[in-house]
């Protein structure tokens, strides 16, 4: 059965001068899938993701996200995606509720929806009582969960997460992943980059980028079989060991 594809990339390439950050990658992501995008630092994950989000223009190749072309319809893509960058990007000098209503507002939710979403998120994140705290004062784990909730506040078709759990403790990471599962169950496609191989095993399928290319793409189970190892860690190490680029 052919499932609906929400991301299609074909021979997507990004060059910065003589440097090829993303080299001819092709893949598809099905609706509702949790798609892991793995690779060492500097392998080109973030660049690839930025192209799909309409933040960066591809040098060549084609791609569509949520049915819209990344070259011509980037603004339409932006209405249908959520994005959480590596850098924490909520307003630290606004309160929890002010951040929620700002992002909900710019995605076009009406006042009633904003109110509902706010109380729903506060309850989910156990932030009742903290609604008037400045985001700056929250612990990192809470900030990340709040940032994720806000990235999907407008129920996008796809959410792009760029190393969402960097620097977060294992408990908060576990909680974060249960939120990802809940979002996926709601039909939101998850596109996530990570360095943590245990997280890779939570994904339906993973791709592993080395030197700007996708060297492997399958479910974690199949990849482990293919490389005849017992963990994603070993799969990753086998591939990344051949990398030419210096980590940076």
């Amino acid at each position: 059965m052919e499932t609906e594809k929400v991301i299609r990339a074909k021979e997507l390439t990004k060059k910065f001068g003589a440097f090829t950050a993303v080299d001819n990658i092709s893949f598809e992501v099905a609706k509702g899938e949790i798609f892991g995008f793995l690779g060492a630092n500097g392998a080109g994950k973030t660049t690839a993701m930025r192209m799909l989000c309409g933040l960066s223009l591809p040098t060549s190749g084609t791609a569509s996200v949520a049915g819209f072309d990344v070259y011509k319809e980037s603004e339409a893509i932006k209405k249908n995606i959520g994005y959480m960058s590596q850098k924490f990007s909520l307003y630290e000098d606004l309160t929890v509720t002010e951040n929620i209503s700002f992002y909900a507002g710019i995605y076009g939710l009406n006042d009633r929806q904003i109110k509902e979403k706010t109380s729903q998120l506060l309850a989910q994140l156990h932030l009742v009582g903290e609604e008037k705290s400045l985001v700056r004062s929250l612990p990192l784990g809470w900030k990340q969960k709040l940032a994720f909730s806000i990235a999907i506040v407008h129920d996008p078709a796809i959410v792009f997460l760029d190393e969402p759990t960097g620097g977060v403790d294992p408990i908060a990471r576990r909680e974060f992943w249960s939120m990802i599962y809940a979002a996926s169950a709601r039909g939101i496609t998850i596109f996530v980059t990570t360095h943590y191989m245990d997280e890779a095993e939570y994904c339906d399928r993973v791709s592993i980028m080395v030197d700007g290319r996708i060297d492997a793409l399958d479910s974690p189970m199949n990849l482990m079989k293919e490389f005849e190892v017992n963990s994603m860690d070993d799969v990753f190490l086998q591939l990344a060991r051949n990398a030419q680029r210096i980590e940076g």
Partner: protein
Amino acid sequence: MRTLKFLLRKELLQIFRDPAIFRILFIMPMVQLLILPLAADYEIKNINLGVVDHDHSTYSRKMIDKITSSGYFRLRDYSATYTQALHAIEQDKTDLILEIPSQFERNLVKESESDLLISVNAINGVKAGLGAAYLQGIIHDYNQEIRMEWIQNLRFNPLPIIDVTSTNWYNPNMNYRVFMVPGILVMLVTMIGSSFASNNIVREKEMGTIEQINVSPIKKTQFIIGKLVPFWILAITVLTLGLILARLVYGIIPLGHYSTIYFFASIYLVAILGLGLLLSTYAQTQQQSMLVSFFVTMIFNLLSGLYTPIESMPQWAQVITWFNPVSYFIQVMRMVMLKGSSLADIEHHILAMLGFAIFFNGWAILNYRKRSG
């Protein structure tokens, strides 16, 4: 429209939440407005005078009295020889030497003429020039008095004198505050417009929040208007406070209408904010944007006619001032405040400012990219 509402609310919340911004925006300009006009005054006072009096006569003493009682000079040195007096200048004790020759009184009475020597320390050119001019003026006056004493019996003055009477139009008392306060106000409003707005956007770049905005459906014109409006309101508020202060503290009431000032200021601020936005699209860090806007506003202020008249600048510098929005606003302020000019009188200024507004904002919008590379 709704997006804009959320952008504006967010911006205002952030501005009013930050006590530092609030202080800088309101208290700093007010203090500047209270201190600068009183200190930055073109009038030269307290010129330190050294006198070498070889004559020691009634006339020479009377003349020295007249000079010191004028209020512009302080008698700081009374030397026996010119060399000693020069020494006082070298030590920076005095700015000016007046040497009265011996036989000053006798020559004056007998031959009805006498010589005086004025030597000036010209390290500070303005002080030297004005000091010498004041001194000559006082001596000239004194000369007249003596002539009157000696020739009062004559029906006709033997030497024809052309007496020049000057009238100071628009600022009859030559009050420097009336001249400076509107200019300083322009400077303050300009600073808020250019550096605050540009820093604000660059801060979003540094924090990474701009990426979150760029990945959202917010249009770039919405984003730019969302940044423009709050700072426009702030700058207008500071202008209002400044005008109130000028009225209460310095008694400066514009001869023209406040509405003329506000009308021009509204356009001016759009232009200056556009410039700030433009700078922010190029700068990557707050440091860069601070330094660049400091550089730009300094040049704008020095070439604005606030401190030195544009007419006495070299031709090439005068050409630069045509491209300086600050000079237009300073002219308009002074025209409205002192001459009572109306909208019709500043028509050219308004058109020029509209040009600036379109140019800077257009460039800023063109250069702002939601998508890089």
